[in-house]
């Protein structure tokens, strides 16, 4: 993975790192303003903040709330567990790789424990984190609307997951309680940064594993021989932002679906199939066949399953590169549990 913008989440120690003093020993602890400033700046860049602290959970959460900073941290892990254990838990809950996490602590022992157990994690002593902000690892290529809202989107995701856990019934019935609204529209110029970010951040749900630059995407957006579609999603808990992207080449005898990509955040919402279904319908209405490129990357098998279950059949293969052809007699309607709005080409 390239260094640029590699870090997606910074996991913080509390005692003598986020604040001066030891919560359970000292009479009072003092928040370190320079650390809060780092937290705030990370947050603005769309880098998440979390916590791995050996502390009493309730006391520490109360202290964070008293300082007015509790909302900055998602999935805080405050327990007597090893920090490597807590960091693994954060990675799992946020659904990101360990190599996208940085860990900040004042104690060499803790930094060493994490460095030994989880060598992929970037370990940073508290005194150095301020200066590290300027390095490529902590600098996303673009700051998009989605990155600024990322923490909020994770928060609504947490509430949503809680609602789902409490719901005892068929999955589709639960989905229909969410009041999901999906938009599908040709990409506008202001969508391109997020579109590029999606191609870079998404591995599992990318049909070819190819990433596209801003310039590539802008060329496709304005090309008469291509259709670049962007999908967005909201529900009653809030927005998910722009979560899907598709690139169709429309010049040949058969349309060619060069890229289909969905954010992992919406994996359980069935919206990839809705976007695919929309493209099937467009091809059918244009009187063209539809073929899709797929490159088996070892991480994107879900995309192959998506195509196969949507009725695509393999027609050509060279090594890991596959071409699949759609069955246009089988264009699925969007499921009843969400509404779709289609935007016109601008």
């Amino acid at each position, binding site marked *: 993975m390239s260094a640029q913008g590699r870090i997606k989440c910074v996991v913080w120690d509390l005692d003598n790192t986020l604040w001066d003093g030891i919560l359970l020993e000292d009479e009072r602890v003092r928040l370190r303003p320079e650390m809060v400033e780092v937290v705030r700046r990370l947050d603005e860049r769309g880098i998440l903040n979390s916590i791995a602290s050996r502390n009493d959970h309730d006391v520490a959460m109360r202290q964070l709330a008293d300082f007015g900073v509790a909302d900055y941290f998602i999935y805080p892990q405050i327990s007597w567990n090893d920090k490597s254990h807590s960091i693994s838990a954060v990675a799992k809950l946020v659904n990101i790789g360990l190599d996208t996490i940085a860990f900040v602590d004042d104690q060499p022992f803790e930094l060493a424990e994490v460095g030994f157990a989880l060598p992929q994690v970037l370990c940073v002593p508290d005194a150095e984190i301020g200066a590290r902000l300027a390095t490529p690892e902590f600098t996303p290529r673009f700051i998009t609307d989605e990155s600024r809202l990322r923490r909020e989107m994770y928060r609504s995701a947490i509430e949503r997951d809680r609602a789902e856990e409490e719901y*005892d*019934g*068929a*999955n*589709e019935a639960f989905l229909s309680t969410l009041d999901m609204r999906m938009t599908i529209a040709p990409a506008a110029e202001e969508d391109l940064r997020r579109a590029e970010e999606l191609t870079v951040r998404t591995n599992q749900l990318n049909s070819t594993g190819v990433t596209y630059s801003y310039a590539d995407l802008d060329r496709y957006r304005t090309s008469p021989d291509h259709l670049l579609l962007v999908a967005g999603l909201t529900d009653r808990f809030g927005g998910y932002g722009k979560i899907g992207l598709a690139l169709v080449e429309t010049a040949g005898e058969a349309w060619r679906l060069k890229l289909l990509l969905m954010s992992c955040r919406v994996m*359980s919402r069935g919206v990839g*199939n809705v976007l695919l279904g929309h493209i099937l319908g467009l091809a059918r209405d244009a009187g063209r066949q539809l073929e899709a490129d797929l490159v088996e990357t070892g991480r994107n098998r879900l995309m192959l399953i998506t195509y196969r*279950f949507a009725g695509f059949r393999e027609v050509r293969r060279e090594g890991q590169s596959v071409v699949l052809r759609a069955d246009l007699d089988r264009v699925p309607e969007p499921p009843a549990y969400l509404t779709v709005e289609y935007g016109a080409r601008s």
Partner: protein
Amino acid sequence: MSDDTRATIRQFICGRFPSVSISDTDDIFAIGVATSLFAMELVIFVENTFGFQVPNEELEMANFRSVEAIAALVARQSATVAGGTG
């Protein structure tokens, strides 16, 4: 073995939808229990539980519609792996 297979599959599906009663021949997609996403979870479940990778040509929704259909898929694959007559 086939009965065991069916029971394992039934247990997985019913475990996910405890409030719905499902027979071995019910089309779980037609009765609105499962979304297309659940179909993918089923693929992963079958592969992890029965220890084979579903070949591309068998990756069809029809093979995952019911407990019966999945059990038939597992039986076909077991026969292939064992070098059986099929």
